[in-house]
């Protein structure tokens, strides 16, 4: 608790004034020789306890009135969050700090971020307990418990500094739970500082239920207090690279970027974007409409080796989401490999052909029996229309996908028991005269996504007469009206495996016109280029364990960088690593207060909505003390009211007749 007029606190001894007056008054009592002492003693024995209690209450009310008056005049600054400090000290306080990129949003009217604000509040509140409780910091980036000795060090610790990561609140609470169990802490409180971003809290995650049950079953009482930094922020825009591809067209190589721009305001206009390419900055302008815009940008790179760059927005409400990094790789032309014995071989070869200096080069073709690992060395896409590979060949194809290659299987026409990565072919189905209509597909990503110009692939016009069911669990990218899959995907290492349930044969479908199958295979060819690149792309906090073993140097600063928490382009030997903040951090959706309270179920939970303008909170405290003072005076007046003091005085007794 702090005070605007702390000098007035020197007057606190004045609260003893009623006691002193009472003592002086006692000394001034007139002595009276009394004969009928036996009745007086009897009377005081029965009424003194009541009278003493009342006198004590009167004195207490007077002391309280003076005390609250002094505190009122001293203008105490006690906010709801700091007010928690008035509670009894628990054995342990676990400080869960959200260090996600969204916490770097500036607070409107202040030159500090939500994280800095939250840290100050936490430090102030925890400072009251640092001598009585164990303070344990648990940050969202490392999710490791660090015991701290002084609350003020929170502002300086490396574990509280800004990051480009996302936060996983259920995981943080799980870590807190593990710490409590492992350390057998007594009474504990969990203080959470977060901006309630929905992607961080994941309110629909089933882990919540398990967590709360586990907390409930702890022998000690655990209280949760949440400091929600949901203050108003200035306008904000974020930028992220959604897609990057290097194309070789007519001898001029170019890099194509699909950039997502998200803004807190929905007005149309122009956004200024600074593109840095290999250290050279260029200012660009992008037309934006609505809150979310996908801006496509391409620039020529010729035949040069790979490069790196970043796209940057001007300073706004959150500086952390104004930059996104990218890296385009060395020129490794994609190559396709068709594995089939059917007559569709030439069609696959043409659809998976690659444009080069001297026209298009069709994909290589092999039969399943004569494919060797050497054939796969330069390939980026394998089109497989044959019985699923088994044995050694299955291992070879699996490794190919693990390395980042793309594999797409087309139906062999007959059901088989063979499985590849848990997927296999089921029965062939015929759709009759009406055939099967495609009902839905993923238009945003994957091989069936919309074109750069935003045009849909003509899947609605695709007539399908026959299909072969896929058996096994996989993500459905396109499905027919009846719910059966047209295209499914299974991620395997750095690569992906697809199963398409129809063939570009007239007996099967109209896919043979090429309007669907060509862009689909061309995109898979381009995506599979990652297999030949030495670059890694990761989200902050999600860098693979293998990459974490390496020593990375930031290409921007030339210093060793923390790839787990800081976005950037890093290099380690001949390997490159591009780290960007998770896309979900750019979402503005927050969890409602009621929903947050609901997540904690039966746990003792308090939510404090941080307000930038503390004056209102201080005012409430003034009013509280003023109210307390008036209340004390009213109670005191009630206790000393004439009717109360002489309530039992009967009329003057008449001497009874002898």
């Amino acid at each position: 608790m702090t005070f605007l007029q702390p000098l007035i606190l020197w007057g606190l001894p004045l609260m003893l004034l009623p006691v002193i007056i009472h003592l002086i008054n006692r000394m001034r009592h007139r002595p009276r020789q009394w004969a009928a002492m036996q009745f007086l003693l009897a009377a005081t024995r029965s009424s003194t306890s009541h009278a003493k209690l009342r006198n004590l209450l009167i004195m207490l009310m007077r002391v309280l009135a003076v005390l609250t008056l002094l505190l009122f005049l001293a203008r105490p600054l006690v906010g709801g969050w700091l007010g928690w400090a008035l509670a009894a000290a628990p054995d342990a306080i676990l400080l869960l700090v959200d260090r996600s990129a969204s916490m770097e949003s500036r607070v409107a009217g202040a030159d500090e971020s939500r994280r800095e604000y939250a840290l100050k509040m936490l430090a102030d509140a925890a400072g009251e307990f640092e001598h009585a409780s164990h303070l344990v910091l648990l940050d969202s980036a490392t999710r490791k418990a660090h015991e701290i000795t002084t609350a003020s060090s929170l502002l300086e610790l490396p574990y509280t500094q800004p990051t480009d990561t996302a936060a996983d609140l259920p995981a943080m609470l799980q870590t807190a739970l593990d710490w409590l169990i492992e350390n057998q802490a007594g009474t504990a409180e969990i203080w959470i500082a977060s901006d309630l971003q929905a992607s961080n809290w994941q309110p629909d995650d089933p882990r919540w239920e398990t967590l709360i049950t586990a907390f409930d079953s702890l022998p000690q009482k655990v209280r949760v207090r949440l400091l929600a930094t949901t203050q108003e922020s200035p306008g904000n825009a974020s930028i992220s690279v959604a897609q990057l591809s290097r194309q070789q067209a007519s001898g001029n190589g170019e890099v194509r970027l699909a950039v997502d721009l998200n803004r807190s305001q929905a007005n149309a206009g122009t956004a200024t974007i600074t593109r840095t390419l290999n250290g050279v900055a260029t200012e660009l302008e992008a037309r934006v409409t609505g809150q979310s815009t996908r801006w496509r940008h391409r620039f020529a790179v010729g035949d040069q080796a790979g490069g790196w760059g970043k796209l940057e927005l001007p300073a706004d409400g959150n500086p952390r989401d104004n930059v996104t990094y990218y890296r385009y790789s060395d020129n490794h032309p994609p190559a396709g490999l068709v594995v089939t014995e059917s007559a569709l071989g030439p069609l696959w070869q043409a659809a998976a052909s690659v444009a080069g200096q001297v026209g298009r080069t069709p994909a290589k073709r092999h039969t399943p029996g004569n494919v060797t690992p050497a054939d796969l060395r330069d390939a980026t896409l394998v089109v497989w229309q044959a019985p699923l590979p088994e044995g050694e060949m299955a291992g070879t194809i699996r490794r190919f996908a693990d390395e980042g290659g793309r594999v797409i299987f087309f139906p062999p026409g007959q059901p088989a028991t063979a499985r590849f990565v848990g997927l296999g072919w089921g029965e062939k189905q015929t759709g009759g005269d009406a055939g099967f209509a495609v009902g839905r597909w993923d238009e945003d990503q994957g091989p069936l996504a919309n074109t750069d110009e935003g045009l849909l692939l003509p899947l609605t016009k695709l007539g399908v007469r026959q299909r072969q069911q896929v058996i096994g669990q996989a993500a459905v990218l396109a499905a027919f009206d009846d719910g059966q899959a047209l295209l499914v995907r299974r991620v395997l290492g750095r690569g992906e495996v697809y199963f398409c349930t129809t063939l570009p044969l007239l007996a099967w479908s109209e896919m043979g016109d090429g309007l669907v199958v060509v862009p689909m295979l061309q995109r898979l060819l381009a995506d599979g280029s990652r297999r030949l690149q030495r670059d890694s792309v990761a989200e902050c906090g999600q860098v693979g364990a293998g990459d974490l073993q390496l020593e990375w140097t930031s290409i921007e600063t030339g210093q060793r960088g923390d790839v787990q928490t800081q976005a950037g382009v890093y290099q380690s030997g001949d390997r490159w690593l591009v780290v960007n903040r998770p896309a979900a951090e750019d979402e503005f959706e927050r969890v409602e207060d009621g929903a947050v309270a609901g997540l904690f179920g039966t746990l003792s939970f308090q939510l404090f909505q941080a307000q930038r303008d503390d004056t209102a909170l201080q005012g409430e405290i003034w009013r509280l003390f003023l109210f307390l003072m008036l209340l004390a005076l009213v109670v005191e007046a009630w206790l000393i009211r004439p009717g109360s003091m002489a309530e039992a005085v009967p009329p003057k007794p008449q001497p009874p007749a002898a």
Partner: protein
Amino acid sequence: MGQPLLARFPMEGNVSGHHRSPHRGSSVEFAEYRNYVPGDDIRRLDWRVFARTDRYYLKEFEAETNLRCYVVLDCSGSMGFTGEHGSRLDYAKRLAATLGYLVINQGDAAGLLHVTEKTATEIPPRRNASHLQVILDALGQAQPAGGTRLVPMLHELAEKARRRALVVILSDCFCDGDELRDALQHLRYQKHDLALFHLLDPLELDFEFDRPVRFVDMEGSQSIITEPATVRAEYQAHLKRFLNKLRDNCHEFNADYRRVTLDQPYDKVLADFLTERARHATRA
């Protein structure tokens, strides 16, 4: 004050006086006839009745004797209570002196018994006029001090005074009510006529104080600081219970209980007392 002090019950004296005696003897006041029983003095036989009825009857007459009056003055510390109307002991002394004067002046014997916690002064009843001065001197020297020994003194008196007497007690009776009851019963058992002047100051009854007071016990060192307004009701309830009980006890043993507040003129108190007794004696 023309009324004599009369006893309400027969008295035993050694000289003739105004008071009824329990004995039948020779006097002018016929009392009753009764049958002769062996042992009676045959000189007291009424021969005329024998002649008419052939039966032996004795004619009895009321004996009249003198009164022995003991004035018991409580001189405990509480009797020194002084209120707006003066000291309680002074008031008691005036009553005692006046009673002594009345008794001796009507030819009866008056004695004085005053007692403090440590000393006891007893002046036996005498009839001669010079004895009044002795009583007045003793009253003049009486001072309030210490606790009360009124109850043991009354028991002692009951044992010591063999002949019936009038015992007038002047006290505030601030002692154990049950013990006082026993003492009164003891006196009545010895056929003494009892009169109790219960002396109280109006302040003790009303307990009206306008500010906190430190009350100091007049018979000890105990003191208590209290807000009179807060304990007033309780105090008066306790006092009322005590007064009612004392009055009931006195009525039970046919003692003449007279509650006197110090704001009452003592001559009026005595006049009422004497009138009441005279009326009672006439009825008897």
